[in-house]
């Protein structure tokens, strides 16, 4: 049984200018002990989808899904109180901005022990011991002293370690890491990723790693789901995806990797992810796609060979494409 199982997740925001569908029919599953990466540009609904799992979206969001289950237990039907027993304990999440994600008014120790007290009912001494142990585990030196520090006294990297310590405090079965390294500088990024992967391997928890970067995907995950404008455009194992991307968007993302770049300029995909007001009627990627045909612009694509595309790629060849047959990149 999958740890997390989502089918056709839809999240719609009510905004002052009408409805906006930020997540549009996303399905994914994570097994115990597995690392799933979710990749996509900014605005593709990665965070919103995972916040929906956590139940942390604002009240303007409407969440629906054919199925959203954790260990076989339906998450959508839970009362707020029942869900609070699961999140923070069995499902934990860390966020992009470590420093603003920690409360400036409380010590690191307080913020770690809070989860322990709430979910495990540990007493004060046991909490302190466990909190120091957790800091040790996430690689913070002199943990006993650090427990008394406030977030503003620590660096961003240290704060992200603290966030990880909070998240793994109750030995979660699933950890969702939402771009845990984006706000950190490069050397620290590698350390934090390494830490996450190591913790995942040691504890056997499931890990969902949200990222912008195909580079991060290659280093960490086994399976990857590519999301674009709220839709999942394709999903494969990392090895297969890098070898043979099916969706032109994935191919473009891979071509944008610095190490695959030809020439001096860093390649990028022209255009931006459509937002609320410029959603195309057909394929959402069509306006930016080198292979788009009139059909792509008018008709939403079917899911073919695991990709949400009219002409999925196969070894770089667009299947059934009327005109050119070269690669998307």
């Amino acid at each position, binding site marked *: 049984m999958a740890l997390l199982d989502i089918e056709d997740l839809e999240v719609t925001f009510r905004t002052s200018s009408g409805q906006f569908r930020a997540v549009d029919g996303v399905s994914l599953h994570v097994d115990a002990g597995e690392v799933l990466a979710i990749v996509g540009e900014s605005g593709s609904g990665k965070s919103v989808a995972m916040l929906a799992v*956590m139940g*942390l979206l604002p009240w303007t969001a409407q969440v629906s899904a054919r199925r959203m289950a954790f260990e076989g237990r339906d998450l959508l039907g839970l009362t*707020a109180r029942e*869900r*609070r*027993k*699961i*999140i*923070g*304990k069995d499902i*934990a*999440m860390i*966020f992009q*901005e470590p420093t*603003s*994600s*920690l*409360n*400036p*008014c*409380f010590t690191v120790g307080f*913020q770690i022990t*809070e*989860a322990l007290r*709430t*979910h495990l009912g540990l007493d004060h001494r046991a909490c302190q011991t466990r909190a120091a142990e957790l800091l040790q585990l996430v690689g913070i030196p002199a943990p006993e002293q650090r427990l008394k520090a*406030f977030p*503003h*006294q620590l660096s961003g990297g240290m704060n992200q370690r603290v*966030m990880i310590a*909070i998240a793994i405090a109750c030995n979660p079965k699933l950890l969702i890491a939402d771009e845990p390294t984006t706000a950190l500088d490069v050397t620290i990024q590698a350390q934090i990723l390494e830490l996450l992967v190591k913790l995942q391997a040691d504890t056997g928890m499931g890990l969902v790693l949200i990222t912008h970067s195909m580079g991060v995907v290659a280093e960490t995950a086994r399976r990857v789901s590519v999301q674009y404008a709220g839709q999942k455009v394709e999903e494969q194992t990392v090895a297969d995806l890098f070898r043979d991307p099916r969706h032109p968007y994935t191919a473009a993302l891979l071509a944008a990797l610095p190490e695959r770049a030809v020439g001096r300029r860093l390649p990028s995909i022209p255009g931006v992810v459509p937002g609320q007001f410029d959603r195309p009627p057909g394929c959402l990627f069509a306006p930016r796609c080198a292979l788009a045909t009139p059909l792509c612009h008018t008709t939403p694509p079917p899911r073919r060979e695991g990709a949400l595309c009219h002409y999925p790629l196969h070894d770089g060849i667009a299947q059934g494409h009327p005109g050119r047959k070269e690669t998307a990149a």
Partner: protein
Amino acid sequence: MFRFLLKRLALTIPTFIALMFITFVMIRLVPGDPIEVRKGERGISPERLAQLRHEMGLDQPVWKQFLDYANGLLHGDFGTSIISKAPVLHEFLTLFPATLELTLSAMIFAIVLGIPAGVIAASRRGGVYDQTLMGLALTGYSMPIFWWGLILILLMSNTLGLTPVSGRVDLIKFYYEPVTGFMLIDSLLSGQKGAFLDAVHHLILPMIVLGTVPLAVIARMTRSSMLEVLEEDYVRTARAKGLSWARVVGIHALRNALIPVVTVIGLQVGGLLAGAVLTETIFSWPGVGKWLIESINRRDYPALQGGIMLIAGIVIVVNLLVDMLYGLINPRIRHAK
């Protein structure tokens, strides 16, 4: 911290001198002087008038009077009341506990109701509670003290007969020596049955009247600060831990939201003392506010001047204390050097 305090104190000295000068001149600009307002129907002979003025130093030029006064102040001498002939400082200190009791209870009233009201309004943003509470707050904020006091007296005392109209204690039924100057405490210490309840009865209306504006300000400030904080990432983190809504709002959000509220509370202290002058007059509350009004009517220059300086000093000290409290609840300030 100590250096910070010294610096802040030093900064208040020019304010203090300016205040002293302006009040000194303004008091003397008001038509009539201490002798004229006492001369009565039959008047006073010009020679006697001149003699009295000379005795009080009022025939000196204003700048000379001012320097004399400032000199006295430097030696801790606030002058002597023209009416009672008692030292101004002594009179002030005798009356101040009554004012302190009134303002403190009004402030506690405002804080105890205002903060929860703001929190409830913020967590039910746009809902019925929010709109009702904020409507009430706006009404309370616009309520003139005189009018509000009279309305409450009419309703509670006249019509319903629930509370006394004036004073701090029913002198016919109870008498006890002041120990702390706080009626609530002294009445308990006296051990007389019913005395405490009587003191509460006397306090309750003036407390509400004086506390209404700060209550409204605190409620509105708490609400807006809370709304801002509830959007913060760390509130999301707190929710992601699976904490109860009460804990997320009451501990994680409120602690941060209180930082600007504390500042506002500090800023209310000046207004509160000004309001106390009116409130004490309406309710014949024997505090420094009522005493100041009487000093104005009698043109008791030293009492008036001394009273204003002392109140200004208190406001300054309270604001300093608030600044320190601010550092206490905001670790980012506490650790900044």
